[in-house]
């Protein structure tokens, strides 16, 4: 493989710095919960359904507790107390708490031991749902074939989940390995997850538990028909990132867009909210075996891709550190980056290859997610197709793991059937024709590629030194990533962040934190 020289000591130091950055935030995370986390706990215990206006019971329940100022005790406490007090099921307990009389303050009613005992079976059931979905996924993958790297990842985005299923099957027919259903625009800012299958959405389709089932069924059918396992992807981001992680875990999704900082930077979601939510979402993801895709590619759509390449690498170290703290294995970390340098810049291809190769080597066990050019795309579809071809060549040359295929109609519309087909056809051709190119060549010592790779690592290291010194909170506040500035208490969802009480109860999190073999005790 055409390697670039990587200073192992410097990489190790970057990991130490990123670990320190994440540890600082972890102290905050461990002392807080959010309404999103608590809704996730409620759903995991089996709370489901919505009222006639479409407000999920999980929301009404948690909002009611939040309104009383009791969120810091955890929804588990109230559900457990109601169960210990005689409610027949978690669902009935949730309905009584949500729609019944005033919720009594913590400390009244059954003892702590009785509450813990009442939660033992629901906690075990929640874990069993994650574990059995994981087992079913593993069995399906073992039975069918997975495509070779780079895995060809395409998106569907019709707004109607049933049309998405048709498009997903067509994409699989054309040779896609991974299908992502793009989420309806602005769902990340909704503080609830819509219910049921949906047929209307702008810019994409709502992520709902029922919609997950529709696509899973379509892709399972494709696996049976073709013998190829096609992976399903959705978005665990925004104000409901941990709830969606739960739904994805039990509905057998394979991948989730999930990033420790994306919501802060690109959706103006509050920092504290995001850090706490990402942690719980990743605890669930770790247990479920889902592969995350991080969103560093987005940095280069707002900041310059030549100038800011090092921020992508620095952020990957940080995302990795956060993911490790949440129990993810490296094999689950699809760290993101992108091919976004101005295509008319001389030798831009070499700069792209340098970064891709550097990331490949530093994160050698990680299923790296490589994103296509978008920023310099115009309506010239013919040129766009050539641009994507160069991206594909860089991808196979540097052995990227997951490659979101570029579409020649980028900047025009969401991909048409034939757009996606031609994109996959082009990727197949280039991945095949250049399959072992990377094994056959070596970069010129001291040449453009080597020099660029070294410079990027050095600058990422410098940035991590700064971030570690000033803390991630202040680094984000001054615009260190993607040129976007955010404050600790600014952004959406801050009102949903609550300090944990000393008696905070979350047995599910306790088990997830105990590691892969953790069981309810």
């Amino acid at each position: 493989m055409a390697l670039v020289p990587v200073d192992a000591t410097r990489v190790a130091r970057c990991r130490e710095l990123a670990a320190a950055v994440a540890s600082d935030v972890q102290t905050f995370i461990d002392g807080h919960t959010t309404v999103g986390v608590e809704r996730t706990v409620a759903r995991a215990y089996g709370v489901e359904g919505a009222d006639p206006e479409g407000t999920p019971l999980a929301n009404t329940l948690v909002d009611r507790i939040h309104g009383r100022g009791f969120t810091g005790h955890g929804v588990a406490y109230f559900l457990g107390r109601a169960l210990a007090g005689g409610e027949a099921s978690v669902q009935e307990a949730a309905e009584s708490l949500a729609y019944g009389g005033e919720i009594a303050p913590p400390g009244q009613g059954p003892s702590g031991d009785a509450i813990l005992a009442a939660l033992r079976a629901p906690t075990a059931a929640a874990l069993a749902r994650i574990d059995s979905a994981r087992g079913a996924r593993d069995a399906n993958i073992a039975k069918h074939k997975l495509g070779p790297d780079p895995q060809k990842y395409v998106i569907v985005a019709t707004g109607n989940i049933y049309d998405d299923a048709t498009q997903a099957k067509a994409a699989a027919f054309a040779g896609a390995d991974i299908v992502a259903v793009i989420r309806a625009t602005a769902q990340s800012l909704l503080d609830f997850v819509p219910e049921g299958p949906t047929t209307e959405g702008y810019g994409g389709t709502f992520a709902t538990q029922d919609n997950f089932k529709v696509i899973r069924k379509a892709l399972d059918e494709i696996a049976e028909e073709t013998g190829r396992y096609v992976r399903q992807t959705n978005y665990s981001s925004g104000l409901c990132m941990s709830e969606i992680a739960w739904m994805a875990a039990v509905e057998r999704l394979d991948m989730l867009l999930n990033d420790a900082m994306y919501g802060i930077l690109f959706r103006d979601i509050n920092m504290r909210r995001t850090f706490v939510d990402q942690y719980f979402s990743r605890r669930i993801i770790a247990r479920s075996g889902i592969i995350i895709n991080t969103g560093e590619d987005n940095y280069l759509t707002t900041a310059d891709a030549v100038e800011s390449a090092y921020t992508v690498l620095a952020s990957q170290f940080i995302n990795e550190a956060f993911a490790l703290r949440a129990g993810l294995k490296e094999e689950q970390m699809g760290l993101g980056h992108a091919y976004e340098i101005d295509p008319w810049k001389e030798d831009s291809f070499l700069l792209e290859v340098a970064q891709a190769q550097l990331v490949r080597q530093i994160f050698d066990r990680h299923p790296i997610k490589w994103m296509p050019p978008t920023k310099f795309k115009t309506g010239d579809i013919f040129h766009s197709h050539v641009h994507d071809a160069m991206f594909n060549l860089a991808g196979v040359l540097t052995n990227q793991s997951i490659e979101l295929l570029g579409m020649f109609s980028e900047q025009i519309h969401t991909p048409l059937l034939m757009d996606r087909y031609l994109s996959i056809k082009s990727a197949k051709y280039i991945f095949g024709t250049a399959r072992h190119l990377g094994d056959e060549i070596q970069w010129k010592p001291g040449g453009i590629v080597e020099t660029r790779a070294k410079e990027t690592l050095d600058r990422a290291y410098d940035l991590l030194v700064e971030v570690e010194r000033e803390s991630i909170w202040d680094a984000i506040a001054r615009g260190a990533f993607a040129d976007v500035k955010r404050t600790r208490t600014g952004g959406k969802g801050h009102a949903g962040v609550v300090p944990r009480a000393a008696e905070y109860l979350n047995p599910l999190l306790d088990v997830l934190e105990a590691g892969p073999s953790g069981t309810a005790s």
Partner: protein
Amino acid sequence: MSSADKREPQLLRAYGDREGDGMVQMSFTLKTLPGDRAREAAKRFAEAHGLKDPLVTAMEQVSQEHTYFVAYGHSVHAVDIAAIDVEELGSQPLSRDEIEAMLKKLGRKVVVVGACTGSDAHTVGIDAIVNYKGYDGDKGLESYKGFDAHNLGAQVENVELCARARALGADAILVSQIITQRNCHKENAAALVEMINQQGWRAEVLLLLGGPRIDNKLARELGFDAGFGPGTLPKHVAAFVVEKMEVRLDAPVRKKIG
């Protein structure tokens, strides 16, 4: 009567290899599987679009039930470009120095507020026009001394945009709409104009609309002062704003707001 009516007709046909050959390429998908009937269907489909002697050059199955075709043919159609009356935007290409000089003459900074409105989360367009970095070597409005440019970013609701624009004393509002599914861009843009009309300050502000599916005609129909489509650079927007501001400040209709 527009002056276009008096012009000599100037017929344009598609130009491929020789004057008047009308060569056009089209690609499309039909819900049928490949075969001789499918090829004939594609040929007739091309003919129905005005392509004479179409040649179906590609026919490939792209899904369980669809086939993709490429066809070439001689378009029988022509357009009379002399009869077209379109207001050309930026007909006076101004250089950066000229724009700065004009801004300086205005005697104060021109306040520009940009945003992606509604549910639209795609800031590439507004960032390219407003942010210092700009696009394709052309620096954004922030880089001009004579502009006081504010990029409010993505998913700004119309209500919020109005409030912020008034608080900042905006001379011009730039709205970017990238997502076009089911015409949400049009509805959202029109709603902004209506809101500003109702609030009674439409005459005090320039409204510009931009995006991949926007052109000047559409923007004008929606009640904006101008529309900017693909290929727009910051200097095009800057030139338009400064020219309009010259007219406006010569005949001040504007009360100082905010």
